[in-house]
């Protein structure tokens, strides 16, 4: 532990600067205030179906806000109280989700497509979206994000972000349609509105996670994962909306099922990763890079850059889709895939490049911290474990060996030990880079926790 004093360089908050919790509360308050005011104004002045949804959807938004608050607070409590708080938060989030689905059914689709079509559409989108979330979470090979936060990000994308953009886009569309010349100019305006409003609405979720859950937001990799989860949530709700809407439009022609099925394929298969998930992943990448940059100016530039790229990627799809028309023949099947690949592919490739670089860099940094911790001889990480912990594949191999040796219990014990060791290395890494504001005692506590888990695993 000789090197410990030099690692004591935490990153205390300068006097006079608001805490990140303060910034988060301010952002959340502004979001809620804008949402409430605009929804009421929308309802009074536009009185359209979407406006009514946004007004009644405020109840769902309030439930999401309350549920999220309770879930986040639950982790500051002792384990006994935590479980109760988590259940309460989970119930509220579940209620909000159901309420929102119900509102969409009742006010938009029940009169035309019917609740059964909406339910079938939702059921059709569930497995593909769940697969997307599973893949995205698995991408973080070193320290997987907790499901609770991935699902909170997903819920924000599905319920809060969609609710926020309905009023904004309705208003923008009304004003633009009354003022602009129809055609490419109006299309560009609509695309600007979608890119700007939807990415802002989604990105706020990632920003709030960055501000509130700093311990679970380590770097660019985490940012991309949370961003993609928010995007998948948004895509889920948008898919249901489009499927039911197009079913209602085309069912009198006898092709309602085909229209809905086509939307499902385009959004839930072809566009699952090539769409909202890619756009919002850029916001997450910007915030994740900002997490590790020194200096407030650079942080702001990185965050703004993420938003800018997301808005541009989203804009390019919405504005220029019409330049790639799809033929009604069999060739159209090839064209639709090529169109997605050409228009969104480069952006997806760029976000994958950032992700792979982040994973590589994170892996190197953690391996270095494993070596240092082992060299200090504190007992949390043994020299023989360094090579194992540095490789996700070797970690899995050792867990599988534990499984065959001692069953699922041994597997879980080793998994917990490895997770705690990774947490310790991550804490060391952030402290070394002076990007952590927790007291140094937290690292000692993690070390003691690892040693305790090692004792349990060996028992």
């Amino acid at each position: 532990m000789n090197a410990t004093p030099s690692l004591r360089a935490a990153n205390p908050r300068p006097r006079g600067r608001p805490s990140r919790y303060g910034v988060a509360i301010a952002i959340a308050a502004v979001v809620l205030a804008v949402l409430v005011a605009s929804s009421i104004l929308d309802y009074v002045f536009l009185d359209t179906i979407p406006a009514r949804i946004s007004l009644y959807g405020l109840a769902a938004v309030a439930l999401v806000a309350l549920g999220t608050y309770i879930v986040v607070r639950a982790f500051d409590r002792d384990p006994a109280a935590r479980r109760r708080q988590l259940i309460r938060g989970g119930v509220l989030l579940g209620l909000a989700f159901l309420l929102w689905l119900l509102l969409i059914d009742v006010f938009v689709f029940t009169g035309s497509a019917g609740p059964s079509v909406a339910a079938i559409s939702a059921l059709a989108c569930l497995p593909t979206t769940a697969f997307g979330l599973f893949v995205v979470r698995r991408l973080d090979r070193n320290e997987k994000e907790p499901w609770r936060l991935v699902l909170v990000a997903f819920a924000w994308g599905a319920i809060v972000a969609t609710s926020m953009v309905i009023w904004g886009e309705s208003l923008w569309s009304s004003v633009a349609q009354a003022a602009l010349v129809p055609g490419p100019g109006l299309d560009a305006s609509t695309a600007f509105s979608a890119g700007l409003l939807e990415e802002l609405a989604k990105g706020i979720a990632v920003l709030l996670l960055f501000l509130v859950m700093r311990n679970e937001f380590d770097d660019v990799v985490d940012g991309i994962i949370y961003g993609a989860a928010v995007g998948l949530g948004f895509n889920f709700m948008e898919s249901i909306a489009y499927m039911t809407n197009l079913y209602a439009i085309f069912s009198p022609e006898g092709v309602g099922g085909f229209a809905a099925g086509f939307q499902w394929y385009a959004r839930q298969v072809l566009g699952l990763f090539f769409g909202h998930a890619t756009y919002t992943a850029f916001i997450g990448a910007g915030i994740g890079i900002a997490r590790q940059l020194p200096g407030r100016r650079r942080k702001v530039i990185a965050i703004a850059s993420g938003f800018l790229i997301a808005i541009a990627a989203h804009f390019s799809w919405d504005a220029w889709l019409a330049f790639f028309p799809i033929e009604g023949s069999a060739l159209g099947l090839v064209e639709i895939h090529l169109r997605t690949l050409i228009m969104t592919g480069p952006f997806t490739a760029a976000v994958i490049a950032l992700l792979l670089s982040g994973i590589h860099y994170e892996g190197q940094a953690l391996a270095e911290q494993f070596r240092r911790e082992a060299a200090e001889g504190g007992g949390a990480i043994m020299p023989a474990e360094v090579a194992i912990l540095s490789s996700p594949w070797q970690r899995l191999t050792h867990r599988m060996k534990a499984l065959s040796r001692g069953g699922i219990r041994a597997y879980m014990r080793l998994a917990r030990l490895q997770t705690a060791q990774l947490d310790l290395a991550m804490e060391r890494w952030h402290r070394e880079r002076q990007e952590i504001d927790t007291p140094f005692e937290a690292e000692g506590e993690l070390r003691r926790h690892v040693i305790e888990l090692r004792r349990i695993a060996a028992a």
Partner: protein
Amino acid sequence: MDRLAAVRPATYDPVRTLFRTLLIFDVVAILVLAVGLGEFVYFEQPGQSTGVKATIVGVYQYDPISRTTSGPDRSTFGRAQQLAAVVDWTSLPPNITVDARWYDSFEAIVGHVGPGMPAQLADQTTIPVGVPTGLKYNLPGHYLFVVERLANGVPVEVLARRIVLVERS
């Protein structure tokens, strides 16, 4: 030599590389948005307002066989009903190029006349909405009808506009 010894190699920080990569993507994003803005300005040219107003007499039920309209001016139609707008071209100055278009809720053009001088369009006062190929009925949603002034073949000003609703039932 002391000065040389004091020079330490700059520590390589991969986060900076990631940050720079992000800034490169930023340049691409700015280019994309600039092209979009250029497109918007090209089709929404500033300073094109002439103050000229066209007269849309009304939107009526339409019989495609006799090519005549009937009934009162309406804002709502059933999807099985055919509809058409009637324009008074004589209300426009003779020396401008104009056209008239119907857009459905997917922003597809589903009916148009022109472009031409108002006198050239005098015998095309009725502009019907066409049912999309392969479909039996009009698609439901809000339909936008516009009379536009063109400059160099590009619509630059809306001289009149009407929105009607085609109901789902």
